[in-house]
Structures are given as C-alpha cells and as structure tokens.
C-alpha cells in the first residue's frame, strides 16, 4: 500500500493513512494488519497493528500506533508516497450488537485506535455509546475529539492531569445498564473491567495482544488459554477479539 499521510498525534503516537490495493470491504472493526518492517531482512517478523479506521469510499485505511521499538519507529518515519507491504485484514473483529443497544466502549493507550472503527459501526446501528478512554497524562491524549462524534466520552489519566484521575475503572462509578462492553488495552485493565462487571449481566468483548510470528494462524505462537485451560486459541486467527467468557484473561 501507499502512504497517504503520516501525522504525529502526541510525543510518540502517530497516525498513518494508507491507500492503494486492499480489501477495504472486508474490514471488521477490531481486525488488524501485519506490516513488513523495511525490506524484512533485519526484521523478519511483521508488526501487527489494528485498523483504527477504514474508509471504503475513499479507499483508505488509518493505523494509529505508539513508537515502542524499532518497527514502530520505522513506521513513524514513513513519508507520503512511501510504499509498505502489509497483510490483512486479519483476525476476527468485534461482534456487533442489535440496533439501538446501549453499549460501553473502554480503551487504554494504543488499545484505543481499533475502538474508533468500532464506534463508527456502532453508530450506524444507532447504538447509544458510552466511551471511556484511558491515557498516561494530558500530553498523551489523542483521538478524543473524533470519539466525541459518536458518543459520550470520559477521559482518564493516570496522573489526573486531564479528566478522571486513575485507571478507566475509576470512571465507572455510576453503572449504567449497558448490554455489551467492548474493550481494548493493557491486560490489567481488561482484568479489572471483568472483575468490575463480574456480577452484572453484560456481554464483554476484549481485544488481546500477543507476540506474533505468522499472523495467520500457522505457527501457534500467539495463543491464549481457554477459560478452562484445556485448550488454546490463536490471538491472530480466532482473535484478537474474544468474548471474555471464552478465554483465560
């Protein structure tokens, strides 16, 4: 694909807009692409990045990523017109609810991007969406305005420099009657959410991260154990989105 635009959102978060040949029509919110870094010689393993937004009409894809290592650093330096080699869309995305549902969307850090495409889909279904977005601090905030188009957004920061102080669960004081929770972010956050809602009737879907080699289900590198710990699921193939009933968080 071709880089249409590369925008720096925060100190280390970048938004990459890509065009060119891709199966835009097939994209489900929560799916990811697997990106070749450079010519792949030094870096044989592709980097999985969620699809933050897919514009079927414009035929463009937006990925939002944080620079944490050499691969994401390389991505952050791409320029308009550069070509990149990616596979996707891969994995299974978020199952969508009935129309007019009342849903909760919770994202932490770079778990937030895939929830943006999700909110677009949810709003097409006329859902009422509460959105909680967790960041490190005020300088870390990104995409908040975009999310506000689709629902009621509460932001949290670890240090309280913006919005609610503390983790996303701190923003859950008045529990609403949500039918479904969609979440993506660090494992401790997902666990805390599950714990929080353990006595409620709410369907929970979480998107997981795991180190990957093939990204297509062939290497069994990225597995997560099922709830009863007797079998495994592949994050890249059966996931990255799982019902929290399915797997051992």
């Amino acid at each position, binding site marked *: 694909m071709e880089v249409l635009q590369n925008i720096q959102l925060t100190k280390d978060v970048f938004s990459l807009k890509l065009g060119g040949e891709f199966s835009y029509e097939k994209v489900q919110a929560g799916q990811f692409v697997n990106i070749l870094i450079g010519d792949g010689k030094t*870096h*044989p*393993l592709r980097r999985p990045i969620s699809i933050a937004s897919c514009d079927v009409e414009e035929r463009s894809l937006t990925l939002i990523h944080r620079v944490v290592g050499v691969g994401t650093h390389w991505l952050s330096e791409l320029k308009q017109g550069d070509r990149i080699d990616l596979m996707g869309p891969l994995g299974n995305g978020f199952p969508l609810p009935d129309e007019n549902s009342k849903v909760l969307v919770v994202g932490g850090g770079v778990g937030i991007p895939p929830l943006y495409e999700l909110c677009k889909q949810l709003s097409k279904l006329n859902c009422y969406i509460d959105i909680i977005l967790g960041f490190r601090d005020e300088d870390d905030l990104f995409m908040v305005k975009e999310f506000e188009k689709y629902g009621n957004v509460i932001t949290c920061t670890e240090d309280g420099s913006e919005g609610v102080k503390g983790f996303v669960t701190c923003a859950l004081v008045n529990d609403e009657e949500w039918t479904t929770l969609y979440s993506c972010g660090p494992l401790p956050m997902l666990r805390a959410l599950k714990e929080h809602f353990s006595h409620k009737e709410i369907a929970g879907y979480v998107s997981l991260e795991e*180190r990957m*080699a*093939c990204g297509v289900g*062939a290497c*069994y*590198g990225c597995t997560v154990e099922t709830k009863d710990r007797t079998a*495994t699921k592949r994050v890249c193939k059966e996931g990255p989105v799982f019902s929290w009933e399915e797997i051992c968080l």
Partner: protein
Amino acid sequence: MNVNLGVNVGSLELRNPVMPASGCFGYGKEYAEYYSLNQLGAVVVSGTTLEPRLGNKTPRVTEVTAGMLNAIGLANPGIDAVIQDELQWLAKQDVPIIVNVSGDSVEDYCRVVEKVCASGLAQAIELNVSCPNVALGGIAFGVDKKVLRNLVESVKAHCTLPLIVKLSPNVTRIQDLAVAAAEGGADALSLINTLIGMQIDLKARKPVLANRTGGFSGRAIKPVAVRMLHDVAKEVDLPLIGMGGIYSGKDAIEFVMVGASAIMVGTANFTDPFACPNIIKEIAEWMEREGIKNLEEIRGCAL
C-alpha cells in the same frame, strides 16, 4: 518453462523441491487462503505428538536480528485430532503430506508413527528428534548417537512410509548423528532444525521468552545450515533435505550445490506468505538462465 523442477527424495517423487518446514505452516489451511497448496513439492505439517499439548507459556516467539526464536513447545491437538481434523482436509488437496512426528519417549514416537501410517493419509514421516527425551532427563534424542540410532531403529519397525529423520544442529559433529540415523534405518535426512538461542529483555531484566531459550531460525542461521548439509553430504549416502534461512531461489540452490535433493522453507513464510511459490519460481528462473534442465545436474557440485 523449459526446466524440469521434479526431484526424488528416495522413493518420494515431488513435483518440485520446495516444501514448507514443519511448524511454520500449520496444517496448510491458513496458507491455502493465499495460494493453492498444489504448487508445493509437499506440505510438512506441524510437530505432532500422541496427546494434545498446549505448548509453552507466552511470549513464545520473538524476533532477533535476521531471525527469530520460538518456544512453541510442540503445541498441537494430538495425533488423533490431527488425523481427523487436519489430514483429512489436507489429503483432499493434490500435494504429498509429510507428517512431522515428535515425542518424549520412544514408545510415543512409535505409536504416533503407527497411527499416521495406518491413516493412509500421509506420504512420509519426518521424525523431529530435537525433542527432549524424558527418560534421559530432557536431553534431546538427536544429540547422542546411540540414543538416536535406537530411536530410529524402533520407529522404523513401525513405519510403512518413507522415514525422514530431521537432525538437530546443536551437536559437535552433525555427520556422526547422520551416520547414526542412517544406521538406524532412515530413508532420508532433513536438516537443520533450529539452533538454540536466547534474547534478554533489558527492561524486564530477564529472557524475553517465557521458556527462557528458544529455537533460532531464519536468514541468520543459513551459513551454519549450508555447512552442516555439506558435512553430512560428505559422509552419508542418503537423500538430504536442506533448510535453515532459505528465503530465495538462490538460497535454495546453495543447499542443492552442497548435496540437497530438496529444501524446506520455515521462517520465510512469516516474512512473506508467498515465500514458497516465489522460491519455486526463482529456482526455475535461475535454472533457465543457467541452462540447467534438472537439479540433478548441479546437486553436490560444490562438495
């Protein structure tokens, strides 16, 4: 093209010398979404054991310079499920199936091999002898001549298919192990399995892999793999299948020139899902350019 890509590995006739390596291609279904498996010389399926295995804790893959480490730990649903859910499907394609058999006791290996042979679904067995031998405190079967010879001999007695023994590179003289496998009755040898490597996470101050060490594969290991194939070809008269860091047709030809009859492609599938068909095309192009009609013309020419 005007070249004949067909090769024989002992009694196995392959339409071309390129096969995905065990553990890097699942049971074929995933890559079948990218291209027809019928283009391949054969499909080698993931390491299969008697009982289902979940494998090691994650992280169980990581990248190193020009390579990767894996500690999958032989995650697989067990031979019965593999036959039922995977080989049945795969056997409907028009491509030979090689089942990679793993185990932690001689008995286990034998029983898996029996089941594969009885299923009638596979064309050959590849014995993964880099697995830890529980009876010997976890030392791999493939690093001791006597242990290896005994394993191969026992398995051979239960094996009605061509038996390929896959050698471990983590030994002082791989040619000695090759001889042991030959003596045990191997019909062909494949090499190399992964080297053993480790990577440290500086932030966590511990190994990246939950299993601490992992199997090291990819471009980085190719010089070792070529050398070992060369060493084995010099001493053993069995058909050899080369692998370790093959990413291109030219990489494959290096192995042929030191004596390989066929080659396998592992890590390259992850970098590029079309690695195998591309390599097949590149081999054909190279042969055409060099005026070579059959790989036998150059096999072992650099020995």
